[in-house]
């Protein structure tokens, strides 16, 4: 499924410059080196990290989108940079586990 199709399922758009990106898997993690090394291209990456460094990691690992779980707030500056750099970010009002379960039923 595509990133923008998640919007009807409890995921909220924070930055959506590439709405048609296809999601083919899921990776959960907050340690950036693990995400860099283990997330696959086109994964939805679920994390509670919100600082600007997640943008470079998402760009380099080529994830389909970042999903911030647990009501984590993304600052306007990170949001604006994400839009500029073509990085999709969604937020989810539940745990990483709940987000993953939801994604499992969808993709």
């Amino acid at each position: 499924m595509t990133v923008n199709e998640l919007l009807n399922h409890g995921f909220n758009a924070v930055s959506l410059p590439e709405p048609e990106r296809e999601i083919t898997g899921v990776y959960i993690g907050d340690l950036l080196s693990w995400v860099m090394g283990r997330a696959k291209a086109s994964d939805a990456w679920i994390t509670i990290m919100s600082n600007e460094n997640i943008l470079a990691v998402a760009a380099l690992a080529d994830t389909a989108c970042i999903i911030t779980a647990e009501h984590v707030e993304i600052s306007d500056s990170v949001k604006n940079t994400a839009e500029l750099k073509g990085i999709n970010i969604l937020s989810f009002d539940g745990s990483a586990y709940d987000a993953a379960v939801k994604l499992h039923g969808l993709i």
Partner: protein
Amino acid sequence: MSEALKFHFTVDGEDFTSAGKASVQVKKNLRQLGLPPEIIRRVSIAMYEGEINMVIHAGGGEADVAVTEDCVEIFLHDSGPGIKDIDRAMQEGYSTASDSIRSLGFGAGMGLPNMKRYTDYMDIKSTVGKGTDITMKVML
């Protein structure tokens, strides 16, 4: 094409938020050259880890990337504190990163092991008090 294509970057040691800039640019350049996605991914991961290390452990440095007929070569140079025990630094989970760095998601101690894992060749030369030079190659 027998001449190597070369890219040079200065990695700013002050600015955490832009860390990874050089790696993202290299990724773009390699894409434009039409290199295979898996090669680009490996170069990106290795270079990002090296770039981040220069920012968090060495106060910045220089990065040079050369694309030749048979490999992508990444050369990183910094004039930071150097690495006392390279074998130890290469172990998964070993990190001297501070708590504030860890709270940003760095300091997992996986950087050097990732660089080794995702490249075909890696050489570290480091002198305490002088700095660190790292050469990595990903074969095409």
